[in-house]
């Protein structure tokens, strides 16, 4: 709850910064506030609090909130320079802070009302941010598509919630769990679960409900894309797993088969479409869809280890993504192009950028000793424990396809003739972000228990 109060207060302060003219002080203030929020959230670890049956700040919520706050901290460091070039920086920061409130609600709800409100608080802010580059038609289109698909998905989610309410007479997760188990063969329960799943699959971009993701990710400003690929995805999967593990773990027969096919489709579509992309931004967008498939494997094979597998995967994926998107942002601003060709031969003049990009790509591809390897390993382990060997086989083949397109970027960096020997200017904040993310990626790859031990 401390997290929510601090984040909301920070958001309101950010709005006041424009009126009272302390825009310069806002950025340090936000970093300080996020640090404070992290501290007070971490203090609630092992002290579960329940708020009127609406929110339940158990360890799951605390750990995912902490992960989201760390990612948001890195995001602010990465995005500062982009938003300072615009006039309405305070509005953007306030929107991000409010959407973080939504993300925290999504990981801590114990009532379907809060799930719905959390998703909406998160999404409405991000709709605006996706369209925030007002004169750019691509950004407009991206925001508009995101809005249309987002509210379309909300409709499905609400219909699902309503049908579940119709059977159980409650929005509370615990009583839904018992009531659903008691009425497990009712048609309304099956329809409700599937509609809820469709709504959440839209938000977490699982195929066949992923079609908006590449367009939206490509058109939105790169910083906002980073936010969508990291914080939004983490929150969406945390909410997905929290809902399905608390409410519908007793009736897995109704939904695991459907989700199984969605995972296979996501892995196939995400990886195969990424292969033929020229633009690195779109490649990362499809890779984000593919990663949603890997994470969903842990949801399909729901077991004791699923929670830590999802936490580890979303967190390390977000860290590597921030790294990759930061480099893309720096390079595309320097060269004016987001294509893979913009990266050709940059290794000699920019050793730090090249090394950080290589580590990020290796992590996304899942090659040891980076964190991405253990992320995939733990997810596959949950599937094997649940007896989903075929799914692991398919996922491994998909990961092999993934290696091909991630290595295209690495090959472009190191083995293509040099285009120019001018070093690309990297600001101190970006440099810090890249160093932190690279070190964390390698550190978590070598010592995965740093994350796994917490949950």
């Amino acid at each position, binding site marked *: 709850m401390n997290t929510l109060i601090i984040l909301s207060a920070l958001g309101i302060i950010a709005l006041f910064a424009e009126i009272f003219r302390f825009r310069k002080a806002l950025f340090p203030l936000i970093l300080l506030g996020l640090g404070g929020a992290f501290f007070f959230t971490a203090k609630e670890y092992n002290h579960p609090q329940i708020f009127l049956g609406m929110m339940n700040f158990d360890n799951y919520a605390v750990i995912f909130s902490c992960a989201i706050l760390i990612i948001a901290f890195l995001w602010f460091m990465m995005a500062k320079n982009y938003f300072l070039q615009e006039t309405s920086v305070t509005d953007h920061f306030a929107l991000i802070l409010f959407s973080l409130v939504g993300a925290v609600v999504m990981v801590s709800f114990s009532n379907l009302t809060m799930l719905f409100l959390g998703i909406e608080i998160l999404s409405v802010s991000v709709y605006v941010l996706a369209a925030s580059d007002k004169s750019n*038609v691509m950004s407009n289109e991206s925001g*508009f598509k995101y809005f249309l698909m987002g509210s*379309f998905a909300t409709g499905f989610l*609400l*219909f699902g919630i*309503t049908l579940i309410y*119709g059977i159980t007479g*409650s929005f509370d997760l615990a009583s839904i769990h018992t009531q659903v188990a008691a009425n497990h063969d009712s048609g309304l329960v099956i329809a409700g679960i599937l509609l809820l799943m469709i709504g959440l699959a839209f938000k977490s971009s699982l195929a066949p409900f992923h079609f908006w993701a590449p367009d939206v990710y*490509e058109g939105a400003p790169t910083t906002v894309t980073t936010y969508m690929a990291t914080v939004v995805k983490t929150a969406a999967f945390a909410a997905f797993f929290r809902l399905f593990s608390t409410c519908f773990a007793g009736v897995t027969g109704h939904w695991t088969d459907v989700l199984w096919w969605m995972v296979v489709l996501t892995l196939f579509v995400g990886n195969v479409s990424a292969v033929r992309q020229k633009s690195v931004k779109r490649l990362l967008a499809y890779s984000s869809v593919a990663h949603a498939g890997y994470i969903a494997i842990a949801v399909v094979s729901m077991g004791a280890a699923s929670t830590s597998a999802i936490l580890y995967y979303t967190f390390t994926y977000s860290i590597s993504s921030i790294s990759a998107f930061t480099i893309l942002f720096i390079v595309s601003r320097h060269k004016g192009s987001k294509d893979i060709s913009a990266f050709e031969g940059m290794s000699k003049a920019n050793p730090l950028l090249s090394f950080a990009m290589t580590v990020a790509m290796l992590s996304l591809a899942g090659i040891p000793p980076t964190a991405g390897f253990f992320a995939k390993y733990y997810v596959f382990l949950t599937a094997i424990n649940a007896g989903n060997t075929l799914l692991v086989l398919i996922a491994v083949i998909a990961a092999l396809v993934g290696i091909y397109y991630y290595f295209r970027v690495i090959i472009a960096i190191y083995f293509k003739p040099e285009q120019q020997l001018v070093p690309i200017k990297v600001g101190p904040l970006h440099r810090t972000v890249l160093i932190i993310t690279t070190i964390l990626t390698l550190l978590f790859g070598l010592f995965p228990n740093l994350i796994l031990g917490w949950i």
Partner: protein
Amino acid sequence: MLGDLKTIPLDWYILLSSILFCIGVMGVLFRRNAIIIFMSIELMLNAVNLLLVAFSAYHNDAKGQVFVFFTMAVAAAEIAVGLAILVVVYRNTKSTDIDVLNRLKG
């Protein structure tokens, strides 16, 4: 008042709401004008509201009706944002037809 609601069988409410919801879904999928799509989304949300109220009456439980207030408030906020984005799109493209939004593909 709530008693009157119950003179109609619950199945009929479910059927009516499902039909309205499906009309909304079809509208979103097949209409090309952005304003009409917004209206279709509203139709989907209102079908849900109707069903929530019906369930709420049948369960003798006010929670469903409270939820409807949340839904309406959120839908209003969402449409406000959506219309703002549409105004920006219109300024740049001079059209509310979603077929002009085809720059992002591949």
